[in-house]
């Protein structure tokens, strides 16, 4: 028995060594082993193993891609053949790759956008257990929701309801002017909020500088975000600095917090004040809805139970509180009343994670919410784009299938099974999909900055995230398999004999192809219609008669910073030649402060049937004339009449709530000073006029009831300009400002800009619509172009014969184009009702909306036909002009 070399080493060697070297080297190794075995078996074994290891090097290791009789060999073969095929048809390959790449890039951007929107408010610890308490209030037939609630609610919940881990309160406040006490220049911070000491625990934030346990314990404590703090001082020296707010209140800096996460509802906020700095922080009043309140449930606590508990709060606390000053009010008669009138008011809770996408913008919201509907629309567009690109691929591949019939025939004759053929075609599709992925990724990287601008985001492509790549590659494979499946299925079906015999192979794929073209153009027409409707609606909103004139009005912010000089400043500005009118008020029809009150008409004080809860704006004597509001009946405030300081102007909606006609309303006495004393001691206001309804909320909402009264405290000044040379006028006003308010920022904007700002979401949506519509149509056209090219080629003999027999170029062009036009026409017919339904639903979001005009459909149809005609006609004309000799010669 001969000595045996180490088995494992030999096995390993046989596994890795290239086949053509194996016998020789193995032989040498064994021979050497046998020779040395006699001297020392152990050493021989060691030597053998060591030599084997030394052979494990590039020159000797076999190519593992070359393993024959295995799947990898077939795969390599498939890839090679695919690559050759793609190279042989560069036109088709470029068309496909390009279309698919655009689709992928678009979908990638949309996906990142959606992913970002879905990530809102999920980063806090236990965020799935955090709820915000809302108020839902129905009065005079209208339901309103508020994101801020009464001040005592937080304490009541803490005391009553054991399943809460933590409760925290905020208090909204307007933007503030901030400076260090000894500094001169103020900085305006737009987003300031009062917070409880439990803020950090609730949302898991940490302070960069300062102690979070005590930061909000003292009154007049202030915490700034890093970027807000850096405007004033080095953040390391922040703690203990004294800051002046609105030039009057001193706050002490107790900490610096990192800038708020971009996908958090606090994202705009830069200044946090201790809640106990606010006079009303421990107010027992249940009718002051200024405090956004968040609660975190204990793990496992039931949300339904919590909601149920909130439902009982009104009768347990709010009504008993109201009973202390409303004579005759009992829980029973308040129930009865709400049954009779249908009015109600209830506390309820919404999950924090739902706030961003699944709740409308309520008053008291921290920042503007997204809209789940837009997410759906975008997702739909994304799916459409990929679908269009896939359809292109299927169309072009099946169209070219005849060319490859011979290949299929030969493969089958040589023994290829159908599965093998399917694999071949799928490999081709995946290869295209892979090239598109690379191209599309490049495109996405390039257009990312523009997309961010368009969508008002700061998204990045997470090129370093393995998960991202996994998803991407998976998507690519799926896309390749999906778009390749139909052509593969179809082509592998050819019978070998028929394919090789030549002549026409009859397939029914023509029908499928027609359906695919119809789908593509239906989607395109749908998108065209949608885009036009969105634009029409926006135009309608922007040009709608709002009931006031927003043009040429300059709004100057923070005029209260001038202190007692404000009236001097107003007179000063009014004297300028290019100024036609000036008015002071904090309340504008564009986004600004809002305030409400409850009025009772004389004779019905404290009778809840007669109460009207309406907006109440403090304005000055020039308000109505500056805004160009129209008086329906009665008169405007008159500065010459001393009694007008206790006069009130109602709008039409308010008069309707009173239940009288505008004419009857003028001269009526109303009061909002009903809490103490008898009717004689109350402060009565006379309705001196009724103003026509004007739109002071966005046109998504209707017009609420409101009233105007004369007030003295105002933060904003409206300046109506005459001339169109705005910059000169603004310069002159600024000069006047510098004199009365040195060191205060001169902040101004035009009212119509602010108005347009309100519709930014719609404008953004419409732009996104346009971009992706154009892209989708482009993809569809690529497909059609390819299909037309193929069709012309397939029918080249037919065209040649027709030409020989005397057909004109125009006749042939017509013949080649008309088939496609039929499909496009069918697509138009299909998509018009669909788009009509969809856009009508979208328009339901607006209180004031257009009826979709018929011409939109006509334009979309004509556009689709023209675009497809242009796409097809190039190929058709080219074919019609070609020399018939060329196409007929080969027969």
């Amino acid at each position, binding site marked *: 028995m*001969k000595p045996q070399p180490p088995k494992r080493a030999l096995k390993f060697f046989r596994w890795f060594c290239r086949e053509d*070297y194996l*016998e*020789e*080297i*193995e*032989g*040498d*190794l*064994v*021979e*050497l082993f*046998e*020779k040395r075995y006699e001297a020392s078996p152990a050493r021989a074994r060691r030597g053998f193993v*060591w*030599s084997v290891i*030394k*052979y494990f*090097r590039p*020159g*000797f290791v076999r190519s593992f891609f070359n393993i024959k009789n295995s799947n990898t060999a077939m795969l390599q073969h498939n890839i090679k053949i695919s690559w050759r095929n793609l190279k042989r048809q560069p036109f088709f390959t470029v068309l496909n790759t390009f279309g698919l790449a655009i689709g992928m890039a678009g979908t990638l951007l949309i996906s990142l956008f959606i992913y970002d929107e879905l990530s809102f408010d999920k980063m806090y610890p236990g965020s799935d257990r955090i709820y915000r308490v809302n108020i839902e209030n129905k009065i005079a037939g209208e339901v309103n929701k508020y994101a801020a609630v009464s001040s005592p609610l937080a304490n009541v919940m803490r005391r009553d309801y054991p399943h809460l881990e933590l409760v925290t309160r905020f208090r909204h406040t307007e933007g503030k002017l901030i400076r260090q006490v000894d500094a001169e220049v103020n900085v305006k911070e737009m987003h300031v909020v009062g917070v409880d000491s439990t803020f950090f625990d609730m949302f898991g934030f940490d302070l960069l500088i300062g102690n979070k346990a005590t930061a909000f314990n003292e009154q007049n404590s202030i915490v700034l975000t890093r970027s807000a703090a850096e405007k004033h001082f080095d953040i390391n020296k922040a703690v203990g600095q004294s800051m002046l707010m609105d030039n009057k209140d001193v706050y002490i800096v107790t900490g610096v917090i990192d800038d708020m996460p971009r996908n958090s509802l606090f994202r705009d906020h830069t200044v946090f004040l201790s809640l106990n700095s606010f006079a009303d922080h421990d107010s027992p009043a249940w009718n002051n809805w200024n405090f956004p309140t968040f609660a975190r449930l204990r793990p496992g606590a039931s949300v339904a139970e919590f909601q149920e508990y909130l439902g009982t709060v009104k009768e347990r606390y709010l009504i008993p509180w109201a009973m202390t000053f409303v004579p005759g009010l009992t829980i029973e008669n308040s129930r009865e009343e709400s049954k009779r009138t249908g009015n109600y008011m209830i506390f309820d809770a919404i999950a924090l994670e739902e706030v961003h996408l699944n709740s409308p913008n309520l008053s008291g919201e921290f920042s503007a919410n997204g809209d789940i509907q837009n997410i759906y629309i975008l997702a739909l567009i994304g799916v459409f784009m990929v679908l269009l690109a896939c359809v292109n691929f299927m169309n072009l591949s099946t169209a070219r299938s005849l060319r490859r019939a011979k290949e299929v025939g030969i493969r089958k004759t040589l023994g290829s099974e159908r599965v093998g053929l399917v694999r071949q075609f799928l490999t081709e599709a995946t290869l295209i999909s892979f090239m598109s992925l690379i191209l599309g990724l490049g495109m996405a990287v390039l257009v990312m900055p523009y997309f961010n601008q368009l969508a008002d985001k700061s998204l990045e492509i997470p090129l370093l995230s393995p998960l991202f790549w996994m998803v991407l590659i998976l998507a690519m494979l799926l896309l390749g398999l999906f778009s390749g499946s139909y052509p593969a299925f179809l082509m592998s079906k050819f019978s070998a004999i028929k394919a090789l015999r030549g002549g026409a192979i009859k397939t029914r794929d023509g029908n499928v192809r027609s359906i695919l073209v119809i789908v593509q153009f239906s989607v395109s027409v749908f998108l065209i219609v949608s885009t036009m409707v969105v634009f029409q609606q926006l135009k309608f909103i922007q040009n709608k008669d709002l009931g006031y004139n927003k043009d040429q009005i300059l709004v100057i912010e923070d005029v209260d910073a001038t202190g007692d000089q404000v009236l001097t400043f107003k007179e000063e500005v009014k004297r300028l030649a290019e100024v036609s009118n000036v008015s002071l008020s904090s309340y504008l029809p564009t986004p600004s402060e809002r305030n409400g009150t409850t009025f009772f008409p004389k004779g019905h004080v404290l009778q809840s049937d007669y109460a009207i809860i309406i907006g109440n704006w403090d304005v000055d004597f020039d308000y109505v004339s500056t805004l160009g509001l129209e008086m329906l009946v009665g008169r405007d405030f008159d500065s010459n009449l001393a009694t007008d300081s206790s006069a009130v102007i109602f709008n039409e909606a308010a008069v309707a709530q009173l239940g009288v006609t505008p004419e009857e309303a003028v001269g009526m006495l109303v009061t909002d000073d009903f809490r103490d004393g008898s009717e004689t001691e109350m402060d009565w206001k006379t309705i001196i006029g009724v103003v026509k309804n004007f739109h002071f909320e966005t046109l998504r909402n209707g017009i609420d009831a409101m009233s105007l009264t004369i007030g003295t405290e105002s933060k904003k000044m409206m300046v109506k300009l005459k001339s169109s040379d705005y910059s000169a006028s603004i310069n002159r006003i600024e000069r006047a400002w510098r004199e009365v308010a040195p060191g205060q920022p001169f902040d101004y904007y035009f009212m119509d800009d602010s108005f347009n700002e309100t519709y930014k979401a719609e404008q953004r949506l419409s732009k996104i619509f346009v971009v992706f519509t154009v892209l989708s149509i482009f993809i569809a056209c690529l497909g059609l172009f390819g299909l037309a090219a193929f069709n012309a080629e397939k029918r080249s003999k037919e065209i040649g014969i027709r030409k020989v027999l005397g057909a004109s170029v125009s006749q042939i062009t017509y013949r080649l184009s008309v088939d496609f036009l039929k499909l496009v026409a069918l697509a138009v017919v299909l998509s018009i009702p669909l788009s009509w339904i969809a856009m009508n639903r979208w328009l339901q979001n607006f209180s004031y909306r257009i009826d979709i005009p018929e011409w939109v459909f006509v334009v979309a149809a004509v556009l689709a036909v023209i675009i497809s005609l242009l796409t097809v006609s190039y190929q058709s004309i080219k074919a019609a002009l070609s020399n018939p000799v060329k196409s007929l010669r080969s027969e």
Partner: protein
Amino acid sequence: MSEPSLGEFEELVLLFVAAHNQEAYGVLILECLEEKLQKKVNISAVHVALKRMENKGFVESNFGGITNERGGRRKKYYSITSLGKKVLDRQYELRTSIYNQIPKISFGQ
């Protein structure tokens, strides 16, 4: 076109292939090398040199018959090609011509 180069170890292996033309195979060359050089050489080094030179066209190889040795595995015999011989000659000439230029050097004290 410059001719492929010949390394020192490769040259030695090539010399043995030439010396045992038609008879040279891995183990034989290894044994000769170890004997002449008086040091251990790994069989893999010999094969690397052989394969490289085969790629360069200095040697060619063919299998011998099946024998009872080596578990029935055939030997692969190497022989030098004319190109290999030419390279070897030139190398030799180059060395001797330079060697002959060496003046008499005395390493005396």
